[in-house]
């Protein structure tokens, strides 16, 4: 009991009396721990965040009718969509295509879930606004050029309905779509509007799904859907999935390597600082040895201090590191980062290990030397 009290008193008094050095050492450990926890948090979260970013390339899975069927039933499509894990879905856009006429010129009209399109195809460039009410449509740039329409003008669509009846309806143009692709020749409207016009409902030609998942997960989803929903044939949009895999792997490797290099250098930096702090106490070690302290008790005392620094600095650092990672994530991805509770003990243990190791080396060399030489200086 007495021994322990003495031990504690020695450590606390050495910490209290050398306040400035305490600060230096603590700062060193805290910097190391901050960088450790911050970078590792970012490293874990970046693939997920960047994966989300890659969703701006649009759909990576499309559901098309299986076999020779011209369309999918809406309930069937819903069953297939339900097989995709909810938290991985970024956007789902069902499409029904019909050929109708504007001013007697045939045009492809797509009925869709406009909110779903905004999520699934974020790259669409809209002049004007997305339609908010029924009876308003988006038109492709090419259609707009051809028929000279601007946002706000109205157009009349006519054609043949589902039962062969002649149909006609007026719409307001709310916006013009630019994509650089075939979409520019289409007219887009809410699915309900198109169904009301055609006089039947529940038919879809294709469902575009934007899913935040890697290649393996996507393959699993494809297998799952084709096994369970026979009427639907899921197909991966290879251009998007393959390229995402390639680029994402590179970016992950980049963040990984950068993390390793920064951590390695920072940890060595922390170790040298700790070594400098301990090395200046050679005299104290010599004095203790002259007073009859055993090498073991001296090593234990310094390790105790190291433990204290490591634990405190590690705790401080894991908090600061998370804060930093959060700032990075909010700035870069405007999304909150997920907290990794496991990282706190890891940071603390690594900090303790590094400070312990850094303390041990100079203490060892000091205890090995004859106290008389140490006390005399040089």
């Amino acid at each position, binding site marked *: 009991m007495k021994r322990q009290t003495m031990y504690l008193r020695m450590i606390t008094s050495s910490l209290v009396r050398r306040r400035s050095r305490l600060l230096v*050492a603590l700062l060193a450990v805290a910097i190391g721990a901050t960088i450790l926890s911050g970078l590792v948090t970012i490293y874990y979260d970046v693939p997920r965040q960047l994966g989300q970013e890659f969703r701006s390339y649009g759909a990576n899975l499309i559901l098309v009718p299986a076999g020779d069927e011209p369309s999918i039933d809406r309930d069937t499509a819903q069953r297939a969509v339900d097989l995709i894990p909810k938290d991985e879905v970024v956007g789902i856009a069902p499409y029904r295509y019909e050929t109708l006429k504007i001013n007697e010129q045939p045009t492809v009209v797509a009925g869709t879930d406009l909110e779903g399109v905004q999520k699934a195809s974020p790259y669409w460039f809209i002049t004007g606004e997305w339609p908010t009410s029924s009876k308003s449509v988006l038109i492709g740039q090419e259609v707009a050029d051809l028929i000279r329409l601007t946002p706000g003008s109205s157009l009349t669509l006519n054609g043949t309905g589902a039962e062969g009846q002649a149909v006609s309806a007026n719409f307001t143009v709310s916006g013009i779509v630019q*994509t650089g692709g075939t979409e520019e020749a289409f007219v887009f409207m809410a699915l309900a509007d198109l169904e009301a016009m055609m006089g039947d409902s529940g038919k879809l030609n294709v469902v575009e799904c934007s899913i935040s998942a890697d290649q393996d997960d996507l393959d699993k989803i494809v297998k799952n859907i084709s096994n369970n929903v026979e009427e639907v044939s899921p197909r991966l949009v290879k*251009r998007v999935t393959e*390229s995402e895999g390639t680029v994402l792997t590179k970016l992950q490797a980049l963040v990984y390597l*950068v993390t390793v290099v*920064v951590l390695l*250098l920072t940890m060595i930096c922390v170790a040298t*600082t700790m070594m*400098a702090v301990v090395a200046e106490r050679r005299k104290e070690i010599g004095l203790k040895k002259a007073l009859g302290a055993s090498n073991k008790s001296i090593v234990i005392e310094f390790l105790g201090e190291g433990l204290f620094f490591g634990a405190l600095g590690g705790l401080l650092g894991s908090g600061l590191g998370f804060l930093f990672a959060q700032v*990075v994530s909010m700035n870069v991805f405007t999304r909150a980062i997920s907290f990794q509770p496991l990282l706190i003990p890891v940071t603390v243990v690594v900090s303790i290990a590094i400070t312990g190791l850094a303390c041990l080396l100079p203490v060892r060399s000091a205890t090995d030397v004859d106290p008389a030489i140490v006390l005399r200086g040089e």
Partner: protein
Amino acid sequence: MFWRMISGALFRQKGKMLMIAFTVALGASLATAMLDVMLDVGDKVNQELKTYGANINVMPKGASLLDDLYGVEEGAGVSNQYLKEEELGRIKTIFWAFNIVDFAPYLDANVDVQLHSNAGSVTAASGTSTETSVSSGGSTSSGGSANVASGTAGVELVGTWFSHHLELPTGESLDTGIKNMKSWWDVSGEWPRDDQPTSALVGSILASQKGIDVGDTLTASTQGRQQDFTVVGIFNAGGEEDEQVYVPLLAVQQLTGRAGLVSSVEVSALTTPDNELSRRAAQNPKSLSIKEWETWYCTAYVSAISYQIEEVITDSVAKPIRQVAESEGAILEKTQLLMLLITVLSLVGAALGISNLITASVMERSREIGLLKALGAHNLPISWLVLAEILITAVVGGVAGYFAGIGFAQIIGHSVFGSAIDVKPMVIPLVAVLIFVVTLAGSIPSIRLLLRLRPAEVLHGR
């Protein structure tokens, strides 16, 4: 005397000074590596993003609507709207020529295809006979039609460059084509060669529908002309291309009688993310003021590159493919920002680490400084002495660290991107200033602290 004291201190405290130099070197190498990687990461990631394929589509003026809107592909009003193949080399002569990574022309035709399978035992003999006729020139042959295995109408035959060697007017040469651009295509068999106009690459859906295998022979016919092709590969692109047949451009030009013409060109270019200026310019370049226009024209915006392509290709419309162009911009910006923030973190870490160590090493010299003061030295010379020692050490460490940092940057570049990171000269002054400021920031407060102490107290200890 001053220098002797410094060199004395440097040599007598070799261990300690080495440690400071080592830490400074670590910090400097960290700063160099991160700055170099950060400054180059944009170019590197941009290059990686080229795996998504073309981001600009060049089409003849006016013709772009007919096919998409009406399904009109042949006949009046269509035939005269093409781009000239001979002008394609000019794409590599625009202001941003170095940013053009790849481009490939397309000319498509709707053809009837007849398959001569080499696999079947009955048709094997006829297949072989067709093959000999192909290898002996491969020009139009009607002999194959007697041995028809199956016929399909309305197959889209696309002529393109696979890996075409092009001599530029500037004297340079390059190889370009869809082999580089369509990196996600999964080809079983081989890519056709542009100098063998009878080789064909068949889409996987078409192949599985019709039972086409590598080595089979196809006869394509349209408007009374005929041409045999040998299937050298089957590709899976995961898109609508899977229902098409790709052959060298020359073959389609001959088959359709449109020598030297192409219907569209896909261009893959390195671009700068769009901003407000480029969006306005994309709407109407003439709406900009002269200064804005120059800025826009001389920046690698996708709209500026499209505009410059329109300038060199007669009667063309170059449109950015937004799916690729927008997303590239977004990802590029995010990656750069991410690297910037990580760089800032590591710079701050390195700076604090260095200044911390220097503070610690100055503090422990309280006794020496006390002795100097007791001997009657003034504050200023003492400060200079300590500062000079530390700065010399820091310079040595910083130089060593800079080169180590270049090494680290190259390790990152080679293992991640497989190419060297550009060493930017502007990193040198940045690192130098950083080290200098950090060293001063680390030593001056602690020197001042020590000067305030009274020599008797210090020498006595405590």
